[in-house]
């Protein structure tokens, strides 16, 4: 059953088995799986059925240090289906080494090995209509161009992309799932001195209030919002739920993605390899996949890098002097640091206007050159964190303030994979690389025109010990008996791969855990 804000009854409280906050990929997949297990669910969507500015406005906030490529407001969506409403559908598994402790990467390691997730990945593939064998054995795919020296990986694209359409009927017909639109989490009522939840209160945009009681409560609102909602539970003399050891909101990560070098073909021509590796590979069911090439773990270990992958992609030309100055000015303007703008940069922009316009056009159509494009893991750094600003949203909760920056390890990893790619191209006698000049001029930073994956993660990290995390290996908040967190916010490290497939695998794993331990 789905209830719009206007269809809420006059009841002021509900009792159910499981209360899920957030109707995106995580919340919807969990609700449907709990239904199959005969468990009653109330699924809360803060937004409405369609995009609505009043709801989306809750996502506004401030980013310090490095801007998120699409900002806090534009890099996620707050209505039924959540960010699946802008999801491309790319699915892939984390690599087995993503789960282990790597001594050169501080705070690395999941509480369990990849083997723990295999059966849940299988289930996620069925849920999304994907062939798991294609994901696991991409080198066997017809037309898959191998790149000698790299591990072949793919993102397999599901057709079940817009969850609000794909699963709407299931939710509407369900007798055990109640979906409330416009139900914004406002208050979490705690039991005595613990972080266990007695009830939660939601408010609608038109002022209705409802209290919900459940056997278990799940926060499934995304990599930024899960942390923000919990941070908002801090009260005078009492720390926020899950924040006994000051880990809540910390270790924010995203995937740095950007072109970084131009491919130079032998004889000035690019071979079919580059053409084929940029094509989508179709499957019999009408699905498609795209290859990624991952630097082998042995080399990651030898050169102490993060997990890195590359693609060859049609991209705009590298940034020239005018564009670099324009990016510098844009950054300073976004931070309101007007006095730091240099006359040289203004001059560069003025004298290179046509080039900047061309660059914007190239960027919009991704044309201009075949480039090496990277997608890499980010170091889980404690200082990359979400805190709360003093400003409040229309629900009355304090807004997000995000501090995001890169460490030397990201740039080091990038340097290594670029040099290695050049060597592999040379060995195969199909080309070499020309590094983008911005990376030569600035040996520490990542490309200025970075596009992130909008794969926010890490802010309620999973850990074996309460001193080093927010949730345990079963996604239960330490010090709470009944509050769980679901989504990429629990990832201790984010690998190189897009997160949604792993999020859905974790949904099924959590559903099983709830059934076995609570019902």
């Amino acid at each position: 059953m789905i209830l719009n804000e206007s269809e809420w009854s006059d009841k002021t409280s509900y009792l159910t088995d499981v209360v899920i906050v957030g109707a995106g990929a995580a919340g919807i997949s969990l609700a449907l799986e709990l239904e199959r297990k005969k468990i009653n669910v109330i699924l809360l969507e803060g937004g409405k059925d369609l995009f609505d500015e009043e709801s989306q406005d809750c996502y506004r906030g401030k980013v310090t240090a490095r801007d998120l490529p699409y900002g806090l407001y534009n890099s996620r969506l707050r209505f039924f289906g959540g960010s699946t409403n802008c999801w491309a559908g790319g699915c892939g598994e984390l690599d087995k080494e993503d789960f282990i402790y790597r001594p050169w990467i501080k705070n690395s390691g999941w509480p369990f090995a990849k083997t723990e997730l295999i059966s849940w990945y299988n289930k996620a593939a069925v849920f999304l209509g994907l062939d798991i064998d294609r994901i696991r054995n991409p080198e066997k795919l017809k037309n898959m161009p191998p790149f000698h020296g790299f591990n072949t990986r793919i993102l397999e694209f599901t057709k079940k992309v817009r969850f609000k359409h794909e699963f709407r009927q299931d939710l509407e017909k369900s007798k055990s799932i109640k979906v409330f639109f416009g139900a914004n989490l406002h208050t979490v009522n705690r039991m005595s001195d613990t972080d266990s939840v007695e009830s939660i209160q939601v408010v609608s945009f038109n002022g209705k209030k409802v209290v919900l009681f459940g056997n278990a409560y799940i926060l499934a609102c995304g990599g930024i919002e899960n942390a923000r909602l919990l941070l908002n539970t801090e009260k005078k003399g009492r720390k926020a739920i899950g924040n006994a050891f000051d880990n809540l909101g910390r270790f924010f990560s995203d995937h740095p993605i950007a072109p970084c070098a131009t491919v130079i073909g032998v004889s000035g021509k690019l071979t079919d390899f580059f053409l084929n590796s940029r094509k989508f590979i179709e499957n019999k069911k009408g699905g498609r996949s795209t290859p990624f090439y991952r630097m082998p773990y042995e080399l990651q270990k030898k050169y102490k890098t993060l997990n890195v992958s590359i693609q060859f992609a049609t991209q705009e030309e590298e940034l020239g002097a005018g564009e670099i100055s324009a990016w510098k000015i844009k950054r300073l303007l976004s931070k309101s640091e007007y006095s730091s703008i240099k006359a040289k940069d203004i001059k560069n922009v003025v004298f290179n206007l046509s080039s900047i316009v061309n660059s914007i056009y190239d960027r919009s159509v991704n044309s201009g050159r075949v480039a090496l494009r990277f997608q890499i893991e980010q170091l889980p750094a404690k200082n990359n964190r979400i805190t709360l600003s003093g400003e409040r949203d229309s629900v009355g909760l304090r807004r997000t303030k995000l501090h995001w920056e890169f460490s030397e390890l990201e740039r080091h990893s990038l340097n290594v994979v670029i040099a290695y790619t050049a060597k592999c191209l040379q060995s195969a006698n199909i080309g070499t690389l020309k590094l983008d000049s911005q990376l030569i001029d600035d040996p520490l930073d990542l490309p200025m025109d970075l596009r992130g994956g909008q794969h926010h993660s890490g802010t309620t990290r999973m850990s074996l010990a309460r001193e080093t995390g927010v949730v345990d290996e079963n996604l239960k908040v330490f010090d709470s008996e009944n509050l769980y967190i679901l989504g990429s916010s629990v990832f201790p490290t984010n690998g190189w791969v897009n997160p949604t497939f792993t999020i859905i695998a974790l949904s099924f794993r959590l559903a099983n855990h709830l059934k076995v331990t609570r019902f």
Partner: protein
Amino acid sequence: MSNLVTRRQALKRMLVVGAGVGVIYTSSGYLFSLKGNKRTRGNQVLLLGVSMRSAAADGYSNIVNDIIDVNFELVPFDQILVNGYFINKNEIKNISHENN
């Protein structure tokens, strides 16, 4: 310390030797025209605006060895970065120059 800093230092060593045109011969090789961005296969790497003229007095091999020594240990995968272009050090046969 970033590997690239070291590569830049290596490049700088090449750049400080003077003005003109320098040529590095490689076994398979590419011809790079940096200004025009034209690339055609050849047996040399052409660095416009970079001269080895003053280096000639000391012998080119010293320069090459110097570059390779600097990069050999610190830049992985036998790569030398020359004006942004990745060149495999094993492909370098010798170094020469042209006056212009």
